[in-house]
């Protein structure tokens, strides 16, 4: 088990190296001079040269890349000029707010998606199955930021059931439990929007995987020993389907972050999305490249976690590998 994890960790290193190099190349290919961007356009040539030397920009490109990667290893993902702090710090400040939307959405979506997928698989090719599939296809087709706008339009602007934007009610100074309720109240619409885009891929892979497992011989054997259809579905087909479901959740993490960022901008939720958008408007490249790298690292990490989850869920992997 442990050697297996070590091997997987070692395999992730070239990927991380590739992702960082790619980011560095992109930044260097981009038009515009970072010194000009930093010092303004009306400095004299001597000043520019001094700045270049100070930031190591007069060195050969290869050396610059090595220096860059060396900084990355030490956790230095660049410095945000606008925030006047390291980009990582700025991002980590905003991350909890984004996770506050993402994590509950993912948990709810996993429960709904697995339940719907199981029901659709158990009644495949019936009206129930068709309804579930059509609904999720529709959910899959809706851009999440548009759905957010519509939710906001109907439930906040028209009906007034939920606050329009933000994470807290700035006018009331709630404390303790009431503050939590206030945040929860603000979360309802953005979480609903996120759940509706997280559910379809989970539901689809659950259905497909359950159907495959329902046709397996061990289901026939279980039914032959008197296990009811429902118990065969929940007690046998579902546990066997958890692996592909875990995989899809792991593989979709980038897509889920993108969804969260878009939803945040609609609801003016102060999180990564708002940060990124401002970074974009202010040409604060360090924030953008750093968040890209952190996300790529997260995706690589999630792949690793799913692989390890395999070995926890599936006894074949648990005993089979190392």
């Amino acid at each position: 088990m442990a050697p297996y994890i070590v091997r997987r960790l070692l395999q992730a290193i070239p990927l991380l190296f590739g992702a960082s190099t790619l980011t560095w190349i992109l930044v260097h290919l981009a038009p515009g001079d970072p010194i000009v961007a930093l010092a303004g356009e009306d400095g004299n040539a001597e000043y520019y040269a001094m700045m270049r030397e100070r930031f190591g920009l007069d060195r050969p490109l290869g050396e610059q890349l090595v220096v860059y990667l060396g900084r990355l290893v030490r956790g230095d993902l660049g410095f945000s000029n606008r925030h006047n702090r390291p980009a990582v710090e700025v991002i980590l400040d905003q991350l909890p707010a984004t996770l506050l939307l993402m994590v509950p959405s993912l948990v709810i979506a996993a429960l709904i998606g697995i339940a719907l997928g199981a029901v659709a698989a158990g009644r495949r090719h019936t009206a129930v199955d068709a309804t579930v599939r059509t609904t999720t296809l529709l959910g899959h087709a809706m851009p999440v930021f548009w759905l957010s706008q519509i939710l906001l339009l109907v439930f906040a602007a028209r009906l007034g059931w939920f606050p329009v934007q933000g994470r807290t009610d700035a006018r009331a100074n709630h404390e303790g439990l009431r503050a939590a309720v206030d945040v929860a109240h603000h979360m309802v619409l953005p979480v609903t929007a996120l759940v509706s885009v997280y559910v379809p891929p989970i539901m689809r892979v659950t259905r497909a995987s359950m159907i495959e497992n329902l046709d397996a011989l061990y289901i026939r054997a279980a039914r032959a020993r008197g296990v009811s259809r429902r118990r065969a579905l929940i007690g046998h087909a579902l546990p066997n389907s958890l692996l592909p479901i875990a995989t899809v959740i792991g593989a979709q993490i980038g897509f889920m972050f993108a969804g969260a960022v878009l939803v945040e901008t609609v609801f003016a939720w102060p999180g990564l999305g708002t940060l990124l958008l401002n970074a974009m408007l202010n040409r604060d490249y360090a924030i953008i490249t750093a968040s890209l790298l952190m996300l790529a690292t997260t995706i690589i990490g999630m792949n690793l976690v799913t692989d390890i989850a395999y070995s926890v869920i599936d006894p074949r992997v648990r005993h089979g590998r190392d």
Partner: protein
Amino acid sequence: MVATEGGHGTAGQVVAEASPGTGLRERFRTPAAKAGLGLTGLFCIVAIAADLIAPSDPFAFVGQAFKSPSTDHWLGTDDLGRDVLSGVVHGARTSLIVGLVVAVSSLIIGTVIGAAAGFAGGWVDDVLMRLTELVQVMPRFFLALMVVALFGPGLPNLIAVLALTSWELIARVVRSAVLSVKEADFVVAARAVGAPAPRLLWTHILPNAIAPAVALAALQVGGAILIEAGLSFLGLGDPNRVSWGYMLNNAQPFVRRAWWLSVFPGAAVAMTLLGINLLSDALSDRAPARPPRRIRRRFRGHVDGPGPSPLAEGPDPGLDPGPNAGSPLLAVEELRVQFGTDVGPLIAVDGLTLTIGRGEVLGLVGESGCGKTVTALAIAGLLDETTAVVDGRVWFDGIDLAAQPESAMNRIRGSRIAMIFQEPGSSLDPVKTVGHQIGEVLRRRDDIARGQRRQTTIDLLDRVGIPDPRRVVEAYAHQLSGGMAQRVMIAIALAGGPDLLIADEPTTALDVTVQAQILELLQELSETEDMAILLITHDLDVVSEFADRVAVMYAGVIVEELTVDRLGHDPRHPYTTALLAARPGVARSDERLATIPGTVPTMLEQPAECRFAARCGPRVEWELSICCEAEPALVETGTDHSVRCWLHQDSLDASDT
């Protein structure tokens, strides 16, 4: 050697054989596929003819700001007085351009990289596959965001970054297709005669690999459109082009004031993506087989077999009339099973009748595809009713199983009728322990207290000859050998204390030495537990060693039923004798093994002639015409001996089929 004859497999094969072109036209028959085609078609038309359809230039200020939808401006006007309808129409063009260019470029890049990796192999393959992995872990949306932010907003930048990050699945598919085609016989042969490598690539390998790649590329269209919309929504779209995301970005500050600004462009995105998703679903999903209409039971002039049981006209279903010592344990009457296929109902079992007495071992013998497994599943009520139509009666200890509700069948299965299967390894749930699966049966027994279950489980495993039962209780299927797994399956079967064990090719997948052990175990258990066994097999040697009686099955019917004793010295049906002659042990070493020419026919309709006529040696030799004109009935030709053959009818002219 003997394939499993599951209903789905058989039905699927027929579909594949009968209509090789179950292609595009078939797939577009469902309403969902039609809707997908319609929506996608509409999207393309609007995008191409945008200039003709749009009432005005999407950037032109044509009216008052914030006019709600009216006859002048069907979808209203925006904050600057621009026509929303014109914007939506021109937005379609932007989306189509993005979707198409990204799909085509990812197809080209993916095909080139995949083909190069697969064909070159070695370090080229290594490097390219690492590159593919890298692309896979780069979050597309954020990479696109970064590129647009660094290089400036604009469609070309966006399309470039999307195309450069959308090819990895295509490359994987093409690579594996190339790898599999590379080793295919015809390519190896072409290489052997000296065809040069590049030509091989173009003429043989790519045409085979390209179909799945195109399907994957089509899937990229929707994703690209969605990302373009998302970026434009964030204000990073091409400022010189109207796009749906751009319009939604524009609508954001006015959501409360002008609903039409967000509703229409968003609906356009949703409808387009829905159409594309439905279409790709139709391309990837198989249309479900429709079950056939329920067929009316037809009574033939002759009821064969040992007659209906005394209770045939019977008790209320569900009422257990108590032990019926005089009647057989199991009496199957006129069992008929059809599978719905796209080319019509397929007859798998066609009026099968058989009985098994208490403690008796009946061997059901026949080639693969003759309907043995389907018969077993029908008796146990395990056929999927959405694809199979079952007719006829199955009397089990005075209960008509065919009339039992599902809940009653769940009680009967496992406790009174148990089954074991051909592939014991796959018959155990891979993620549950052996103990758990035995427990599922024990849990429903009132006579075993909760605390005793573990001990009972160990005793059961011990009884079926498992050496270390305490360890095996905690074991998973993958830790057991085939023979061990089959012993576990037998233990599960015994757990309920059944009266009947249906054993479907229980030894076929096992080693020869293990086969003998399992058969010995079954034989011993049938005596000690007073358990009747329906032994389904293709192996006459197994049957003659172990069964009391034999029923020979061919193309969905019993063609001969006799005692094992008579099988040895008086087999009558030409099929039975042919099967006996084809046993490996019969041929002398200098002789070729006798075989029966041809295969079991697949029946889409009831045959008018004898089912075996086409393969029957005596019929060919003696040129019997009746065999090709009418089907013989199963008639009793002696004590415990019935035959379905024109050579053994009492009077040849009294046929009344």
